[in-house]
């Protein structure tokens, strides 16, 4: 299934996105590392969905707009983005930073959203106690150590680390990291006001989490389930922070079942 590269101007931000496949619209919001290439899960989902994968403002090939100051700006931007592409009944899927964005979008307006798949999302904070350790400090980790924490299977990390960086990938990495800091440095990777309004999400929600997530501990999955009791909760075994990569088949089957029910 071929994905094509496209650009659209939204809120003065030239925004890059990839689009491929046929079916109900599915928008995938990437995590802090960006989405520089078409990954196998995108190809797989494109067999059933019209898959749209934007680079967030400040990430990848999208502009870095002056107005981008916090996660709320991103939420309003995406409401404009969905309107600009005239998308309706969207399956909104977000991983990590992208999952946080998905929640921020959905508490504001679900009129173009059919359902929400939150894949190890950032955005909330679990108060201490038994439910899990603190999230890893991605801003103090070296890029190599961050990659090692992404996966449960160390072979996957070593595979990714064995690809030598290019001048372009270094530039993209620094750009993505800068925007992640802008949005998530403090409060660290969450919005303390978000839990107050999660009850506004009035579409079906599925939570997906790797049981061995070393970046955002799985305790957060239970906290979101507590805040959004109607949500279904899927904990994947032998899986780290990127279920769509590490458990691709299982993840895609889960999304299809949930979205097409």
């Amino acid at each position: 299934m071929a994905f094509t590269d496209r650009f659209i101007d939204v809120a003065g931000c030239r925004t890059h996105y990839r689009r491929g496949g046929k079916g109900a619209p599915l928008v995938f919001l990437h995590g802090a590392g960006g989405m520089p290439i078409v990954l196998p899960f995108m190809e797989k989902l494109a067999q059933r969905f019209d898959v749209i994968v934007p680079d967030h403002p400040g990430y990848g090939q999208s502009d870095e707009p002056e107005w981008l100051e916090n996660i709320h700006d991103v939420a309003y931007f995406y409401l404009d983005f969905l309107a600009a592409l005239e998308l309706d009944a969207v399956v909104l899927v977000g991983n990590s930073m992208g999952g946080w964005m998905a929640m921020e979008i959905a508490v504001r307006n679900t009129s173009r959203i059919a359902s929400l798949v939150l894949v190890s999302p950032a955005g909330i904070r679990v108060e201490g106690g038994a439910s899990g350790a603190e999230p890893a400090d991605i801003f103090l980790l070296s890029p190599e150590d961050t990659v090692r924490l992404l996966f449960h299977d160390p072979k996957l990390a070593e595979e990714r680390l064995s690809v030598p960086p290019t001048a372009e990938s270094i530039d993209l990495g620094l750009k993505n990291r800068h925007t992640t800091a802008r949005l998530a440095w403090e409060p660290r990777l969450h919005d303390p006001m978000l839990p107050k309004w999660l009850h506004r999400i009035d579409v079906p929600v599925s939570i997906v989490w790797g049981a061995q997530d070393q970046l955002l501990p799985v305790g957060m999955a239970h906290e979101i389930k507590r805040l959004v009791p109607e949500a279904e909760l899927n904990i994947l075994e032998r899986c780290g922070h990127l279920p769509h990569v590490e458990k691709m088949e299982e993840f895609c089957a889960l999304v299809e079942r949930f979205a097409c029910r």
Partner: protein
Amino acid sequence: MQIVLFHLMPYAALDLNEGRKNATVWVTLPNRNFDPQRGHQLYNRYLDELEYGEELGFDVVAVNEHHQTAYGLMPSPIVTASALARKTKRVKIAILGSALPLRSHPLTVAEEHAMIDVISGGRLISGFVRGIGAEYHTFGVNPTFSHDRFHEAHDLIVRAWTEPGPFSFQGHHYRVRYVNLWPRPYQKPHPPIWIPSQGSKETIDWASHPERRYTYLQTFSPVKVVQRYLKSYRDTCAGHGYECEDRQLGWAVPVYVGDTDESARGEAKAHFEAFRNVYVRMPLEMLLPPGYTSRESLKNVMKAKAQMFGDVTLEQALELGLFVCGSAQTVTEAFSQHWSDMRFGNLLVMCQFGTLPADLTRANMERFARGVMPRLKALN
């Protein structure tokens, strides 16, 4: 030349092995390594050393701000500068500097500096910094807003010092309905402003602007780097259409003066190497969080990583001009030569560094003040 005695007030009682084991003495070194009894002795010893600086004839004594680190025990230089304002009578007191973006509200800086200026009868030199990268980890202030917050805080402080209050200030990061400073600063129009920096084009452009003409201090850098940035400052002034005065330039450097070159090196070696290789050290991610520098500067640092983040011996440091050490004659000649190359109007000497104990620090200060300083002061 104006000679400044500069102190970091490090936690010299640090177990160096603990510092090495933790890879840095910043942010994450557990504070069980700080013993308040030793801290009590050190603070009082260091304040005594700065007060002795007045007696020895230094023009300025200087303190600075660092947080959650054994590198320097002054999370508030306001506290040490205040103590000095009362204990000293003639010497100028420099705060190099207050980390503006780390404050919740910059008006507190305007107020505290104005108090010290009034109490000391106009002896304050105000320094403004952004805080180093590690301090964006300790405070949680977003480093991608660091430059914006610095500039806006600066504008608010200078306006609060100079414009009749009350007036309203509506910025992007700070908004206040009533700016009406009590006390107003003693000096007119306000205390001199110095800008310590590790070297950045943005800082030089800003500090040298004809409306500001702030004194630019290059801190703890290889002498070639000092030369490059001081020249860049002069060139930038010329680009602005005026000639840079020597008083607009300064160099901050650790110094050790011994009876002979050999004894100086022998006495300083372990303490300097502890300073450079334990106290200064931190990982790249801690030093340069996103947005603290431009991405171009960050890439340059990544390229020079091996050189910047490896150990440096005293001998290498002398070669690089990171450290000036030797007999009074050697040190005098070195600074005279550097002065004629660079014409900096301010020399900031750090006579205590790392684990350098009280007796060696005092002896160093005395040899510098008696054997080196008179000739340097005469340079003009």
